[in-house]
């Protein structure tokens, strides 16, 4: 909106001439996206229309039967529902957990701030696999949590924590939390503190200030963070495999199964495209609904 204003207010021809030169600046990024994202995706889409053969990998074909078969299979229906459910649940929980932290980070004035931001980012420095391995060390029967609980006699038998959906939820949230916190914090930072004082001055309690001022104004950050996190959750692989165990099925591991174990590339590609379509439609519908609610412009 800032740009729109500038353009509306500024008169003269130099405004028009700027973008043509500017367009070159995005060229490398565009080429990269085109080459490394769009290209392989088109290739995948083509593969998804082929037919599987155990001996030749695939037979050239042009049919949507892989999509039809996956959509009709109760197994994949369940995988899709689990994936969606996990993604929505984890996004919601992450948002609830992240917001207070994001508020704190966004409002932090001291010289520790950059240190706090780095600390927030720290989990991202550790790879998914390593991090999940850490969670495994906590969750297994002789892991830290059970060891502590047994030691202090809270439980007499080790709890089963590994390979449960709960473990996956914890694991995913730990992975995506920094994205949500930092996205929201950067928006909170841009909300003048005066607005909170003004709200209090006008009689709003802390809770009313949150609902009426902070939340609506951080809506762009909440939306961006939620979309980012939702997409990450939908595509969870390592966490689902390592913490959820072999019985817990989300889309990304199911796709991996088809590609690598089943050697069934056409089916794997079809599943991948279904996941993509699902993620995109939820993201788009969600953003539109959100924009309407909070007038994000």
């Amino acid at each position, binding site marked *: 909106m800032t740009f729109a204003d500038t353009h509306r207010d500024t008169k003269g021809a130099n405004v028009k001439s700027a973008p043509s030169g500017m367009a070159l600046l995005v060229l490398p990024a565009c080429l990269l996206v085109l080459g490394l994202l769009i290209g392989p995706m088109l*290739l995948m889409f083509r593969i998804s229309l082929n037919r599987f053969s*155990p001996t*030749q990998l695939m037979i050239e074909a042009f049919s949507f039967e892989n999509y039809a078969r996956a959509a009709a299979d109760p197994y994949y229906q*369940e995988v899709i529902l689990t994936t969606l459910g996990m993604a929505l649940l984890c996004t919601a929980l992450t948002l609830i957990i992240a917001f207070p932290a994001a508020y704190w980070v966004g409002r932090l004035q001291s010289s520790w701030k950059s240190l706090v931001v780095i600390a927030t980012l720290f989990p991202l420095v550790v790879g998914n696999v390593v991090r999940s391995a850490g969670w495994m060390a906590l969750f297994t029967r002789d892991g830290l949590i059970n060891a502590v609980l047994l030691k202090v006699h809270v439980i007499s038998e080790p709890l089963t924590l590994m390979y449960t959906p709960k473990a996956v939820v914890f694991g995913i949230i730990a992975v995506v939390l920094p994205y949500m916190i930092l996205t929201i914090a950067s928006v909170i930072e841009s909300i003048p503190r005066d607005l909170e004082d003004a709200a209090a001055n006008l009689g709003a309690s802390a809770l009313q200030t949150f609902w009426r001022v902070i939340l609506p104004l951080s809506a762009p950050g909440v939306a961006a963070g939620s979309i980012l996190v939702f997409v990450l959750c939908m595509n969870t692989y390592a966490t689902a495999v*390592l913490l959820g165990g*072999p*019985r817990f*099925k989300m889309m990304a591991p199911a796709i991996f199964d088809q590609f690598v174990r*089943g050697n069934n590339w056409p089916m794997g590609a079809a599943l991948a495209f279904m996941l993509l379509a699902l993620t995109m439609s939820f993201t788009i519908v969600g953003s539109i609904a959100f924009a309407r609610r909070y007038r994000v412009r």
Partner: protein
Amino acid sequence: MISRRHLLSAGAGAATMLVPGVPIARAESSQVVVGTWGGDYGQLLSDLIDKPLLAPKGVEVLQDVANADPRKTKLLAERQSRRGSMDVACLSDTDHYVVATTNVFEAVDAAKIPRLDKVFPELRTDTAIPHIYSALVILYNENQVKTPPTSWADLWDPKWRGRVGLADILYSWNTLAAALANGGGVSNLDPAEQKLMELRSLDAKIYPSNEALAAGLKSEEVWLTAMWLARGFMWKKAGIPLSHVVPKEGAASIVFEASVPRNARNKDGGFAYLDAMLDAKAQIAFADKMGYVPTVSDAVLPEDLAKQVSLSEADRARLLKPDYKYQSERSQRTLDFWNKQFKG
């Protein structure tokens, strides 16, 4: 992270598939490119074969490291092209079979590979040398399981409810074990399906990887499993209280093989490499480090090592060679049943 890496490498495979014959620059024929697994196996190849056996002959070995599936795909994708990217392809016997059906590999014979004569006859194939092998056995916790099992069917004993753990990645072998427990065999996996559902109701634990299964065995969360004897050997060395038994129905074999693709640039080098892989000293070292059994008759293991990693004469007789054709044609059904019914 894992998924992305795999998808990327798979994508690269797809690209080469659509653009056959992309020339890959390579300088000299004194170089041999070996397509192999990384990790322990790749390191041992380098330490026991590349450096001591081939380097003195002036042969430089380059490892093309990847998991089996991308390499398999690469071989299939390159099969039309005149010059391939590997001179030696290491694959398990099952994978080798799938790729070999498309006529990708050179035939092996004693003229090119002098040491082929020493290979046990039952391990020979037309297009590959067997490098090392092992067998699928029952591993059990010797502290918890006082009466050693004798049959695959013993894993279904209700008293071991919840104590049987299986590795997810060995699904086809677990399926074979279930078939054997129910009167099936390498060429008849159908009886496995009923048995797997029984095991499911007996609360069998499934672990995503061999390492996770090892952790489960170590923590005594589970007491019994179907596993390669070689792995059992390494786990015992790591201090897990395990014993192994070859069930009366027989142990299924897995052979790690190596072949020379037809479109290899340096076939002579490739065959020289295959010959070196059959070196007795190197094979004994592999047995000592990884627990896999030599495939040549003149590689005699020290007695205590032999006891731990190799099969007795009687057990060798009951070694079950997979029915590759049947297995590959049934692969989708086996995987689907495992995922959708057994685990679902």
